[in-house]
């Protein structure tokens, strides 16, 4: 019997499953609150507003320059709580494992998950594993719920966004989208660009108590433009982005130029977009610039009255509407 790979029997509730949970999951994720024999756990009392979020993770390939599905899942959930102004505390994780996945690979991803969780002072308090038949999954899916806490005085909300507010971003956009694409070695392209997958907690902690900070969001799927659309829709105002100001790495620019992708729609996994009162923008930037994660932070646009559109002011002085994504972006074929 091949004992280096996940079998359907690893999901049958018997000995193999128990051993997998002990040897892989509990070994990496173990902590005083995690009881693998319990059906449910009691959490300690916390002061402040409790916040909860959930997210599912799938990425192809499972490992890419700058991260893997384990660290990606932690960062994704940490970041959703962080941009809401919260500190993450407790996670639950469900792993859907495809029959045939190498156990050593699973071990790497869960170890990476545990490392990222420790770095963000998060503990896993409940978990579950399932095995799906070969061909019914892409190696490993992770579903993670996160509980965090924030001060009751936090006033981050989209409805505070007003015309003339300034749009900031904490660093270059599109790195994750291009890094993962290069890692797939499609289109005969390869490269060393690293994903930006990271916790944004240091960035949000540094600025979340500013009264003139109105809203934060982490651009993930759909990229910067999609966050801008969410802001435009919810606030009832237009968002104007300055093409010359949006930070892009040279590798992202050249791949986009080659394949005809629009960098504003590419995924990020470690950036924050913030909406700030114009006179407080420099304060936020100063705090961000003091952090390694925020070195390249800058003002990239503003909120305008009239419509709920997203407009890109191009380097040539033209104006272009950035429409909402319709289908997945495709590479050019001419």
């Amino acid at each position, binding site marked *: 019997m091949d004992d280096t790979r996940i079998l359907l029997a690893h999901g049958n509730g018997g000995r193999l499953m128990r051993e997998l949970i002990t040897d892989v999951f509990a070994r990496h994720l173990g902590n005083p609150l995690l009881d693998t024999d319990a059906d449910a756990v009691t959490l300690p009392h916390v002061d402040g507003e409790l916040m909860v979020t959930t997210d599912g993770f799938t990425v192809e390939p499972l490992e890419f320059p700058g991260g893997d599905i384990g660290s990606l899942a932690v960062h994704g959930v940490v970041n959703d709580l962080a941009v809401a102004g919260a500190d993450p505390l407790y996670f639950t994780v469900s792993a859907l494992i495809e029959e045939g996945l190498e156990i050593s690979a699973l071990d790497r991803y869960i170890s990476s998950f545990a490392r990222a969780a420790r770095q963000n002072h998060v503990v896993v308090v409940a978990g579950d594993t399932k095995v799906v038949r070969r061909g019914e999954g892409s190696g490993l899916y992770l579903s993670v719920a996160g509980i965090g806490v924030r001060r009751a005085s936090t006033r981050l909300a989209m409805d505070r966004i007003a015309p003339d507010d300034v749009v900031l971003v904490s660093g270059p956009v599109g790195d994750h989208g291009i890094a993962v694409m290069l890692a797939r070695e499609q289109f005969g392209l390869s490269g060393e660009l690293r994903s930006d997958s990271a916790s944004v907690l240091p960035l949000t902690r540094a600025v979340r108590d500013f009264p003139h900070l109105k809203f934060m969001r982490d651009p993930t799927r759909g990229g910067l433009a999609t966050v801008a659309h969410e802001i435009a829709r919810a606030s009832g105002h237009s968002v104007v982005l300055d093409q010359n100001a949006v930070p892009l790495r040279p590798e992202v620019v050249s791949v986009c130029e080659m394949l005809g992708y629009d960098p504003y729609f590419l995924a990020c996994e470690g950036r924050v977009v913030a909406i700030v009162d114009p006179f407080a923008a420099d304060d936020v930037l100063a705090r961000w610039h003091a952090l390694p994660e925020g070195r390249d932070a800058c003002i990239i646009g503003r909120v305008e009255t009239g419509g709920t559109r997203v407009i890109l002011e191009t*380097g*040539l002085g*033209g104006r*272009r509407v950035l429409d909402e994504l319709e289908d997945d972006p495709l*590479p050019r*074929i*001419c």
Partner: protein
Amino acid sequence: MDNARAWLDKIHAFEFDRPIKIMNVCGGHERSITHAGMRGALPKWLELVPGPGCPVCVCPEEDVYQAIRLALHDKVILVAFGDMLRVPVNVKKGEVRSLAEAQAAGADIRPIASPIDARRIAQDNPDRPVVFFAAGFETTTAPTAAMLAEGIPDNLSILLSGRLTWPAVAMLLDSGSPGFDALVAPGHVSTVMGPEEWSFVIDRHEIPAAVAGFGTESLLASFYSVLRQLKTGERFLDNCYREVAHPGGNPTGRRLLDHTLEVVDANWRGIGIIPNSGYALRPAFAQHDARLLFPDHTDPGRRRAGEMPPGCDCAQVVLGKIYPNQCRIYGKACTPRNPVGPCMVSDEGACRIWWAGGVRVAVDA
């Protein structure tokens, strides 16, 4: 961007007492132009006309129809560039009208981004016939040819709908009313076939032409070049994409194209047969020719020139006769969510590009 500004200033320094139209024949060019907001930044007398530059848009209806039938009835795995999946064919209401609908109806259709993916899918499924619906210009046909020459799995066949770009431009120029004063020649096509393929525009028609890449600077440089040629009366094929498009193109690519494929007369959707404008597999590769392997679904009755859906002016848009928003149904019956014609489907299609760029106001032709 500083160089772009400089080119823009030089273009603004020209004065013309009549409107000047520059045609591009590459969806990638049109996308760069629209995305950069170039039209708003250029002088009023200068018009940029998108021409035949979208391989998805000109792929004949009968080929899409055949691909749909193959996928539905022959239990094949059909692989196609993602753009092809939503292209509608003309069928009665209730019938499957696109590959995407065939997929929803249970057909095994897989979108791919590169011909290599077709080979991989065939290798991963040795027990099933895999058909690669290869619509495209020289740029995507060349890698398909290279793959054929290298040898492909026995279970992989190709439904080739490859087209050459220059014959469509030659047809426009020969028509006597080309509708443009200068041409920006396609960068990637020139990378494969060599820039000199476009010399006929100057030699036979005395129309200024320049090869351009996809960056703002390269495109603006090409506009400047053709405008200067118009001004001075000088005529030469300029190359504003020298770092990538070399004289002679890609000799290996051309050799493999020639080795595996022959140039044939071909139908362009809504336009008709253009002489020497298509590729077909050479007889030596007949065992991989899906048209020969699955003859049942070839329907010559569908081979009509004017088979755009009713009201759709895609053919006029493709030929640069009207702008996308001059189509009768642009933004009304036809939007990216419910495309009627292929130009609203593909990311290379002028209608789709204009819509995505925010053009919402339809105007009369």
